């Protein structure tokens, strides 16, 4: 009997050792384990549960779990007795909030009923999923933020696209090497391309020498209002006013070059037209006095530079007043147009004929060697006027008095002196009976 008792005691000791190890082991795991009766009275819990509810173990024992562990859902305290009694499966993925010491935790739990000797014990395992939940919330928050930012960016992109699309100026975005990355509608429309046709092409298809302008933009970071010529798909030339700037990436490297070009073809044409009108006689289309002043200065410079002589002719039509008085001013004007045409036909390509006003003309004759060359041209001019000017199917005997101021490139003379000399020579021709030419001569000078 005594031996039997000793054996039983030995078995009990072994069981106690095992129980102690189990209890210790259960206290080290992350899950909080508690077992209660069906009313929620706590019969035992592991150390993790003690820590979860932040109470001493002995205080927890015998307490009601529903008083100790106030679970919430979306901030509202809930009754979870039914879940405890009926059992919660692993598959149920409910997450509850629990506040302890002002710290908000997220818990999941599962329960298992254990019936022994007609008594039900409910074993509940709580898992603290706060880290995962906060991480998930953070991810969701970031995801939401990302979506909002994406939407915002999409809106901004649409807004920018609309601005770029509604721009009347051409926009090109190109790489360092001049490859076109993006163009707007206006650019495609003005140059006669489809937008996609230009993407990936070199800027060379549009600009004559893109490399130099790109290099200039990169080196100076931006340029503004540079007049450039663009070529359309059909080869037409467009005058443009080009501005450009450099875009940098986050590392400070050039990521793209943005150029905006304004089509100024019409403006340039208008400017040219205005320039033409301000420098040409509207009746004969010959250059006018304003043009003549500049042209004479340029001719003198050219003469000095090329070491070629020049001559300035002053020409006055003989008796033009009679035509005006007898045939009327409109006929006189038509006559002047005819004379202008005749003069132009008598001159070489480099020579310039100018209507100074009324029936007075000036001719700048470039590239002469000797006064004889000037004399030959003068003779030809007078001859052509006499012979070739027919008017209203009637031949009019047109004559003119021509004064020639010959300029030796080796000598210096002001434009005004040269004009004065030509004028003196012209009056000399009139005095000599008209229909002739006379050279201006210094006293005792023998020109021919």
């Amino acid at each position, binding site marked *: 009997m005594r031996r039997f008792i000793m054996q039983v005691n030995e078995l009990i*000791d072994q*069981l*106690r050792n095992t129980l102690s190890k189990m209890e210790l082991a259960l206290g080290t795991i992350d899950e909080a384990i508690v*077992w209660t009766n069906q009313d929620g009275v706590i019969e035992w819990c592991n150390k993790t549960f003690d820590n979860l509810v932040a109470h001493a173990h*002995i205080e927890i*024992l015998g307490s009601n779990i529903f008083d100790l562990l106030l679970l919430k859902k979306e901030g509202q305290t809930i009754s979870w007795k039914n879940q405890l009694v009926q059992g919660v499966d692993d598959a149920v993925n409910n997450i509850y909030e629990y506040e302890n010491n002002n710290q908000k935790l997220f818990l999941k739990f599962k329960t298992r009923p254990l019936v022994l000797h007609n008594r039900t014990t409910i074993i509940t395992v709580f898992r603290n999923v706060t880290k995962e939940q906060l991480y998930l919330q953070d991810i969701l928050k970031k995801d939401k933020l990302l979506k909002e930012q994406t939407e915002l960016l999409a809106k901004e992109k649409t807004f920018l696209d609309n601005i770029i699309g509604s721009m009347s100026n051409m926009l090109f975005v190109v790489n360092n090497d001049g490859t076109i990355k993006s163009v707007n509608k206006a650019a495609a429309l003005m140059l006669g391309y489809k937008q996609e046709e230009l993407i990936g092409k070199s800027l060379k298809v549009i600009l004559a020498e893109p490399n130099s302008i790109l290099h200039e933009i990169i080196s100076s970071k931006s340029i503004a209002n540079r007049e450039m010529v663009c070529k359309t798909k059909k080869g037409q030339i467009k005058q443009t006013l080009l501005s450009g700037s450099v875009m940098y990436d986050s590392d400070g490297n050039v990521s793209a070059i943005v150029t905006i070009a304004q089509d100024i073809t019409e403006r340039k044409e208008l400017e040219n037209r205005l320039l033409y009108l301000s420098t040409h006689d509207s009746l004969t289309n010959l250059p006018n006095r304003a043009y003549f002043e500049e042209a004479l200065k340029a001719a003198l410079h050219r003469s000095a530079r090329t070491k070629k002589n020049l001559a300035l002719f002053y020409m006055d039509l003989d008796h033009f007043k009679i035509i005006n008085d007898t045939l009327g001013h409109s006929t006189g004007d038509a006559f002047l147009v005819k004379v202008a045409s005749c003069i132009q036909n008598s001159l070489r390509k480099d020579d310039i004929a100018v209507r100074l006003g009324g029936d007075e003309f000036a001719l700048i004759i470039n590239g002469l060697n000797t006064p004889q060359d000037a004399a030959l041209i003068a003779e030809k001019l007078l001859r052509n006027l006499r012979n070739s000017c027919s008017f209203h199917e009637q031949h009019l005997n047109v004559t003119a008095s021509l004064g020639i101021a010959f300029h030796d490139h080796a000598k210096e003379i002001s434009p005004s002196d040269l004009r004065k000399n030509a004028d003196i020579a012209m009056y000399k021709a009139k005095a000599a009976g008209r229909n002739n030419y006379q050279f201006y001569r210094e006293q005792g000078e023998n020109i021919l």
Partner: protein
Amino acid sequence: MGIINDLKQEKNFAVVIADHNGLITYVNAHFETIFKWTLAEIQGKPINIIIPPPLHDAHNLGFSRFLSTETPTLLNKPLNLNALKKTGEEFKSIHTIFAEKLEGEWVFGAKIIPLDEAIHNASQ
């Protein structure tokens, strides 16, 4: 003499003594009055008889842990625990549990004061 012997001399509070197997070996008269058990009736019964069933597992585990490790966690300090009378009535009480090794075996003794009695004594 040791604490167990001192407890046996106690007359003002309920005292219960159990052996290393958790079997009751002694209760005093005050205990008999409160718990409605006589010494003859309760002697040799497991100590769980005066512990409400919800605390049985906790008691068994704690008891086993102490005997295995001999490291006390709840000894020598007053604990608020429910106790169970023979009538099945539970009441709140202050337990102070002591342990002493006698002839190589652990002997446990507890002084139990019903909470209302403790409050009454304190107010005197």
